[in-house]
């Protein structure tokens, strides 16, 4: 019986009629020097979905075992960050917040920005940190960055619940906040932020295998991006002649749309949003293809 499920047919029936026809062999897999760059093996990745889940579980459990605060680590950092921002940017430097309660304004900005920056930082060292396990066994390497993104999404869920809690509180005390239908864009915005971080993360990951100093640049770079993204100030406050550059920053549209949808203030610009959407997927595609092409020879370079 031949395995006909997903075979590659080889064994050419060459020669003239005089010769015995060669037996046709069905192979389940063929290991070749370099796969075609467009072979993403997504089906295989799907078959390993259980592994992604186990990686998420492993990192989650190991991160919170033997900590004093345990799962409270999810809750405290976003609140503390928003409080600190309220104090420094709102009270000390007195940055405008489009008339919104500063606390909510900062929380909304860092919430979206952190999805981008964490997806980027957490996936930018995948090869380096897993060189040992990658050198011992094969499994689709993309499972690791995927798991890293998913772990952070657990965090995101908790933060979102907190954010909604504070939103309801501020509305109940009479703050001028008008959530609208654009809030339903949330899943798309989430996806865009993840892509925006994951794409460059995968590219850097493939490159840090070769250039170690690149890894240190990642955190530095994301800090720089914070300054040119309307996280702690509104886009409306940016001088007119500089606005075009801020709009070119693909993260800007995500944050502004999120604010507009949930808080009713911010710049809603469909062109900007479409641009940002396109860029995020282009980043993701380049990242995934690059990562896949590095995967098979990465170990020769470390």
């Amino acid at each position, binding site marked *: 019986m031949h*395995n006909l499920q997903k075979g*590659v047919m*080889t064994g050419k029936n060459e020669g003239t009629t005089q010769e015995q026809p060669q*037996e046709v*062999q*069905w*192979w*389940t*897999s*063929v*290991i*070749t*020097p*370099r*796969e075609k760059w467009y072979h993403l093996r997504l089906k295989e990745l799907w078959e*390993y979905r*259980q*592994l992604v889940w*186990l990686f998420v*579980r*492993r990192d989650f*459990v*190991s991160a919170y*075992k*033997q900590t004093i605060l345990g799962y409270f680590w999810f809750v405290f950092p976003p609140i503390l960050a928003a409080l600190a921002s309220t104090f420094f940017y709102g009270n000390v430097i007195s940055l405008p917040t489009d008339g919104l309660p500063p606390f909510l304004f900062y929380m909304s900005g860092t919430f979206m920005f952190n999805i981008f920056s964490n997806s980027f930082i957490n996936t930018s060292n995948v090869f380096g940190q897993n060189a040992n*396990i*990658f*050198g*011992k*066994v*094969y*499994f689709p390497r993309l499972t690791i960055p995927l798991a890293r993104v998913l772990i952070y999404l657990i965090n995101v869920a908790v933060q979102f619940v907190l954010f909604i809690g504070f939103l309801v509180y501020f509305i109940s005390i009479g703050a001028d906040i008008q959530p609208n239908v654009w809030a339903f864009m949330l899943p798309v915005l989430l996806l865009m932020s993840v892509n925006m971080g994951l794409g460059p993360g995968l590219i850097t990951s493939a*490159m840090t295998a*070769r*250039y*170690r*100093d*690149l890894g240190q640049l990642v955190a530095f770079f994301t800090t720089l991006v914070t300054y040119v993204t309307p996280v702690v100030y509104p886009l409306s406050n940016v001088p007119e002649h500089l606005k075009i550059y801020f709009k070119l920053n693909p993260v800007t549209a995500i944050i502004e749309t999120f604010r507009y949808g949930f808080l009713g203030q911010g710049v809603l610009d469909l062109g900007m949003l479409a641009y940002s959407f396109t860029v995020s997927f282009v980043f993701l595609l380049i990242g995934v293809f690059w990562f896949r092409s590095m995967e*098979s*020879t990465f*170990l*020769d*370079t470390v």
Partner: protein
Amino acid sequence: MGKVISVEHLSKYYRLGLVDRRTFRDDILVLWNRMTGKPDPYGRTQSEETGIWALKDVSFEVEQGERIGIIGFNGAGKSTLLKIFSRITAPTAGQIKIKGKVASLLEVGTGFHPELTGRENIYLNGTILGMKRSEIEKKFDEIVAFSEIGKFIDTPVKRYSSGMYVRLAFAVAAHLEPEILVVDEVLAVGDFAFQRKCLDKMEDVATGGRTVLFVSHNMGSINRLCNRAVLLRQGEVTAIGPTAAVINKYMKESIAGEAQYIQEPDPAKPMNLLEASVVNQEGVVGAQFGYDEPVTIRLKYEINQPVRGCYVGIELLTSIGVSVFTTADHDADVSMLEDRQPGVYESEVVIPREFLMPGEFMVRVWIADGFAVVAYERVDALRFSVMDTGTPGSHFGQDSRRSLLQPIFPWRTKGLD
């Protein structure tokens, strides 16, 4: 039956020198200089690229149910072949065609996390190795029983002893059920009893109709597990065939002139070993012996001052370090342990013909005083090999005897009726 693995003209090239700890800045500099036509700051040009072919045009085929051993010296390309099989790295040229599900074991316990419990690690490790969740669930109890972990299954593995850790790791690996199993020398784990159990389990796997590719330095386990072997040398296949024949060829290649060992004497020491050699029955120094020839070990030593006893001894070991026997000159003559006068002495011991099982041996030599204080010793002083020129086992085709000694003892048989 039929071919399940076909390795075709497989080659792997590793670049040397170019891939080093260079930084991004360096590469930009190189690129800039190339564009502006300046010479490379690191003095390298494209044509100067040096590298090594870890594998060169390797081809062989494996039938279903075969157990293939891959042997060769360090750097022969065994690990590279294994890595390509395991899809850890891609070949430079050629291809491997595989029919069936492959599992490869280059290490046991890959991905184990110390904070997770034994149970959690079984699932994680099993999944990494390519098992489905349902498969793990089905075999879970069997794995736990095999590992002898018992009630500690829900304890984080960081609290395990190293023995428990390895047993659990191996238990998972041993319950993989792929059609093709690729194994590195992971068998040398755990205590002796557990090693035994692992080897038995491996044999079960091998005889269960599964195809096994086994890489090891241990000729004993290769001989025991494999029916065919591939010998690699500097990336090329130099022999392929029945295990015993290929191992024999490997042994011949591995013998280098170590039949004589000369030691620079230290006049300050009361006694010095001067020379150790392996000689044949004609008195000629040599490293190759037939099974039907006696092997003589000759030791020359000097005593510089009157001492209370001086004796020399040898220990015969197999090439992988298993002790065969130990003997010293005072075994037969206790007077060696009494007062000895200065002078140069020569002692020799004859290992009789038809005694050592064909294979490779090494000799540890030492010299000591009457209080057994060792003045000098050398573990790997001599090496020699014994060729099969007709052991009793060889009369039956493929040799199945695996002992270290093959003496011919008299048997007496009489009819009882």
